[in-house]
């Protein structure tokens, strides 16, 4: 243990502590009843109780916002994964200029900041006289999620030996069977990481949803928090909700990573 090692450790831990301070702050103050953050009025589990029994002010608003967030993220990332995987296979088999054009177009949504994606899609829906709501939000989320699926599936395609697919055909598999039994299993890791990435980006999105949700009062968690904060008083039950979400994500990510490192150790 030399001093440089100690310094490195300390540095990493300081950055981590700073990164986690606000999250810990939310978690700590989820165990008190006070309305505003940072106001400690003694230990209490009431906010958790309210969250699960639904006995809070404007409870339907928060619950439907959570539901919308999850449903939109699920629909958008499933469609993005299918569309992106098919597209990746197509782009992989393209050549020359067509391939460059597709790669260029695929990069645009990733380079564009959220607000540009949001405003441009808002103008599209206005221009086409499409009334904005659930469908437009889902379409917008598919737009910014799909490029990441393409990006995750593409490397799996270049690792795949094309002869295996041909061999399956030669051995009497129909193209559908070959697709299901050869191509999809080989692409699955890329599809899964594309799906997870899409899902989390959709969950976290604020700007794009904000511009494409229309005026029918559709709220996701992000837009709900934004409206709430602008009104001045944050719904106190958001604190336990965020704490629970954080713990869930922490556990899932740790499991995924421990599994991955075990797998790579085996290999």
């Amino acid at each position, binding site marked *: 243990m030399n001093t440089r090692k100690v310094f490195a450790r300390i540095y990493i831990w300081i950055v981590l502590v700073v990164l986690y301070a*606000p999250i810990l702050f*939310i978690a700590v103050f989820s165990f008190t009843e006070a309305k505003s953050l940072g106001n400690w009025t003694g230990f209490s589990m009431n906010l958790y109780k309210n969250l699960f029994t639904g006995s809070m002010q404007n409870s339907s608003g928060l619950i439907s916002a959570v539901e919308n967030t999850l449903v939109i993220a699920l629909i958008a990332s499933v469609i993005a994964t299918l569309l992106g995987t098919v597209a990746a296979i197509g782009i992989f088999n393209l050549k020359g200029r067509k391939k460059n054009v597709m790669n260029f177009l695929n990069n645009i949504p990733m380079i564009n900041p959220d607000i540009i994606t949001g*405003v*441009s899609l808002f103008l599209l829906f206005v221009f086409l006289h499409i009334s904005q709501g659930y469908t437009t939000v889902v379409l917008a989320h598919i737009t910014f999620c799909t490029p990441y699926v393409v*990006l995750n599936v593409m490397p799996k395609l270049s690792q795949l030996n094309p002869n295996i697919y041909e061999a399956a055909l030669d051995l009497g598999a129909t193209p559908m069977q070959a697709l299901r039994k050869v191509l999809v299993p080989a692409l699955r890791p890329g599809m899964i990481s594309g799906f997870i990435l899409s899902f989390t980006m959709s969950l976290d999105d604020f700007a794009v949803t904000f511009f494409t949700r229309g005026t029918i009062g559709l709220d996701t968690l992000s837009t709900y928090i*934004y409206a709430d904060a602008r009104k001045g008083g944050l719904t106190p039950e958001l604190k336990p909700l965020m704490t629970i*979400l*954080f713990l869930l994500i922490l556990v899932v*990510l740790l499991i995924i*990573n421990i599994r991955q490192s075990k797998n790579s150790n085996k290999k």
Partner: protein
Amino acid sequence: MNKRSNWALPYFIFLVLFVVVPLLLILVYALQDASGHFTLANIGKFFSDGDSLSTFALSIEVAIENTILCILIGYPAAWILANKEYNKGAVTVVLFILPMWINALMRTLATAELFTMAGIQLGKGTLLFGMCYDYLPFMIYPIYNVLNKMDKSYAEAAQDLGATPGEVFRKVTLPLSMPGVLSGVMMVFMPTVSTFAISEFLTNNKIKLFGTIIQENINNSMWNYGAALSLIMLVIIGITTFLQGNESEENSVGGII
């Protein structure tokens, strides 16, 4: 095999409809007045409006400062994480990415609340710190990725040939890791210019960034001026992307997990 390339077609149509056409519509709306006639007045308005111009200048300034701050804090962190001698498990890396999974608005509100509790007045300082906090993982991850994949034998060779550790870093590691820094810059700079909610929360509405005025115009049905402001932003994105070139294309976000 030839038929398989047709599979790109649905996505091509999708991209044209939901990416290309909307971007063209920004251009169309920016060059129209409210009744649909061609005009350059919206663009002219931006360049003659002192408020918009100073907001724009401030946004660029904050974005540059934030990007530099993220590099200064993030590069050493990424370097330590990628160094096998200091960091053995992948779990620490996960810990750095994890905060991104918590709703950004909620984190930002909590950050602002922490500042208030510590008695720090909300203003430009808190804006910078809060932004840096929000975007740091986006800087650390691409740099870590590049450093982690880097062939260590280059650094060893330089050492064998008599370079001091400082020289090895300056002449080998740093230049080789530039693609990661560049994609980090891309992921921090433009989003900083364009955020709206985050800057409002961190300064208690005292400081407006460019994203906020775009949002205000669009929400007040001044679509044409909003589109003109978006167009200006698109031009800047175009320039920065062009300057960056294709160097870091392979190192872009990829799989964050």
